[in-house]
């Protein structure tokens, strides 16, 4: 078989596995499947039908799971030369990802559905089914690296392509899930993957990247939520409780949001105002100056560890949102909750998002942010 530059070369020392390759119809998962074949594994392709009523065609870069994506995945599987099936996980996806997404917003939090999908669908529903059917591993086109330790065990690391790194959304995987995962793209840049796809005659080589939320095809998250949660007018307040305006639903806001507040008059100091708090209980949104967003520490729940859970306080770097920067922290597991103290204040941190802890490039674990500690606005 031809060796492709950028692909892992030389005889593989790893055993031949029965691999189920999740194929979205995009370029990454197609190349990942091809590389798994080339590594000597027995690969079967599967496209997950996640939308209950798939659209016929993609519109721009958004969305996935259209019939066209399914066809693209099938054609890639043909070219790679592997069997291909479509599995309908739409019901599980709706329950575990979409309903959760809506419920989280309704509770004033800002969920990350990709993380949730990895935790509940790709590396749970799909992996469980694959293992039960006799597969050894699930392979995806995520940009992350798995490092095998000499004494057994595996570590999850950031991809070499920092811009494409997806280890943040994989931070929910535990050791058991990692043991059955294959991420063949972690050592390559996106640019190289596209070139490789071209060389492999994969028609998806030039297909645009998908981003945004796959189940909100038009990208209108507010409209999507409004349709499901209905209009719920309430007040927009400043930090001391003065009413500044009204909103159509507190769920429509995200902490740190600046645009679309519809507050008629400027702040007394003339500086822009940001959403500081969302309170679903009294349906209010509190706004204030940027400094009010400074987070000094946080408490996170539902911790998940890629290896053994750390004991005692430890020094890490933390990523606090998708594509966010890493910040140095001290973190400690106490009473099933993760306490994280930031060395320097950080902004744009919302409950519902995940905190992922890193040790260098290694992913240590993750937890869902429940509460943040901020300076009282009065102190600012």
């Amino acid at each position, binding site marked *: 078989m031809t060796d492709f530059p950028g692909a892992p070369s030389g005889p593989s020392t790893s055993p031949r596995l029965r691999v189920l390759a999740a194929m979205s119809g995009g370029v990454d998962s197609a190349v990942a499947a091809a590389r798994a074949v080339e590594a000597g594994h027995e690969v079967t392709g599967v496209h997950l039908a996640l939308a209950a009523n798939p659209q016929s065609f993609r519109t721009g870069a958004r969305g996935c799971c259209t019939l066209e994506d399914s066809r693209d995945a099938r054609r890639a599987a043909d070219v790679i030369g592997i*069997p291909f099936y479509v599995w309908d996980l739409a019901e599980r996806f709706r329950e575990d990802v979409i309903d959760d997404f809506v419920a989280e917003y309704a509770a004033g939090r800002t969920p990350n559905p990709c993380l949730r999908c990895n935790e509940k669908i790709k590396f749970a529903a799909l992996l*469980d089914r694959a293992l039960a059917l006799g597969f050894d591993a699930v392979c995806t086109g995520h940009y992350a690296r798995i490092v095998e330790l000499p004494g057994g065990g595996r570590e999850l690391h950031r991809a070499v392509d920092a811009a494409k790194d997806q280890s943040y959304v994989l931070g929910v995987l535990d050791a058991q899930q990692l043991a059955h995962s294959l991420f063949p793209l972690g050592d390559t840049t996106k640019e190289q993957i596209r070139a490789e796809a071209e060389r492999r005659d994969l028609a998806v080589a030039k297909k645009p990247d998908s981003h945004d939320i796959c189940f909100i095809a038009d990208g209108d998250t507010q409209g999507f939520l409004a349709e499901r949660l209905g209009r719920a007018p309430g007040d927009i307040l400043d930090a001391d409780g003065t009413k500044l305006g009204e909103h159509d639903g507190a769920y429509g806001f995200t902490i740190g949001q600046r645009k679309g507040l519809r507050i008629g008059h400027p702040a007394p100091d003339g500086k822009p105002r940001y959403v500081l708090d969302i309170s679903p209980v009294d349906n209010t949104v509190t706004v204030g100056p940027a400094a009010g967003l400074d987070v000094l520490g946080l408490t996170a729940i539902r911790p998940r560890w890629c290896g053994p859970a750390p004991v005692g306080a430890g020094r890490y770097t933390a990523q606090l949102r998708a594509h966010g920067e890493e910040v140095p922290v001290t973190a400690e597991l106490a009473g099933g909750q993760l306490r994280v103290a930031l060395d320097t204040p950080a902004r744009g941190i919302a409950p519902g998002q995940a905190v992922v802890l890193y040790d260098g490039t290694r992913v240590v674990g993750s937890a869902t942010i429940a509460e943040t500690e901020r300076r009282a606005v009065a102190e600012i």
Partner: protein
Amino acid sequence: MQSVQWPNRDPGHALRRGPFQCSAYTGAAMPYLDHAATTPMLPEAIAAMTAHLGVTGNASSLHAAGRRARRVVEESRESLAAALGARPSEIVLTGGGTESDNLAVKGLYWARRDADPARTRVLCSPVEHHAVLDAVHWLAEHEGAQVEYLPVDGHGRVHPEALREAIEREPGSVALVTVMWANNEIGTLLPIAELAAVAKEFGIPMHADAVQALGQVPIDFAASGLDALTVTGHKVGGPYGVGALLLGRGQTPVPLLHGGGQERDVRSGTLDVPAAAGFATAVRLAVERQAEHAVAVAGLRDDLVARVRAAVPAAVLNGDPDPAGRLPANAHFSFPGCEGDALLMLLDAAGIEASTGSACSAGVPQPSHVLLAIGADPLLARSSLRFSLGHTSTKADVDVLAEAIGPVVQRAERAGQR
């Protein structure tokens, strides 16, 4: 000429690679148990078809080449008519079963409604193939049809009394009746002649889709009393993309395709001469061999059913358990606790080709409307698998399946239902 280099030219390449290849099967028989989806072409049909592929001639042309082509078409038509108990003028060649069904259902509905606007009721079995079912839905949504599903028993059979009852509620408003000859999923045979006799009493045209029945049970258009009957080539060892609507001479459906006026002005389009020849040959042989084939294939099927049940005692045979009441080549099971598509994948990986038997959208299996119509639980309806035999089936095929099915079902059970 330069040859085009396709990746993976070996047609078996993608199909045969699989994670669970059992050494007992590699290199041996690869059982194809999906003849209800399509059948291998008969060598005689391939010969008849290829003989005409290189010959020029539009069957509608008036010159020698045209006459030569037309002669092949007309001889094919005569052959089809003789095999199917019809007159040559009653054979309307089409592009296959779906087109024939659509032409019958829509065309007859339009014609009847045009003649009498009160006739908008369409009486239909709920176990029809999608080519009929979706055509009928479309008429309801766009053409003001009132669709009434005739009640079926637990095997998917429409009883003549049920049809009579439905017609008698308001005989003057019925546009047409459409009931399939044999069900494509569970293999149940329907009492077509008795149903047609009821429709005839009221002067209502009746259509039957006999795509699955042809070659497995005797089909005689004249004796059936039907006004329209659908058959297709590729289910009986003929080519894809060609079929016929047998149409009583009094019936003039409104065409789906307008154009050159071929085929009684009911189905325009240049006639496909090689396909007609291949189709006619396949139908002639299927009918000639039907009695013998039915006995042989029923023997294999009975063996298959017994051995699947022995390997998987929980398996439920769907459709009529009486061999006389179902297609001789059909075996359709539900495997409780399993997902049909998981079973299909595991068998496929072992080189055994079967079907969940239900319609797919983008490859996503839907719970079978046939099983739902006969009262099956939706979970059970998603746990089914159809094995359909054909002219190339052998005892070795059944042996391989019998050996594989037990472990496959166990594995699928572990994966459970979603």
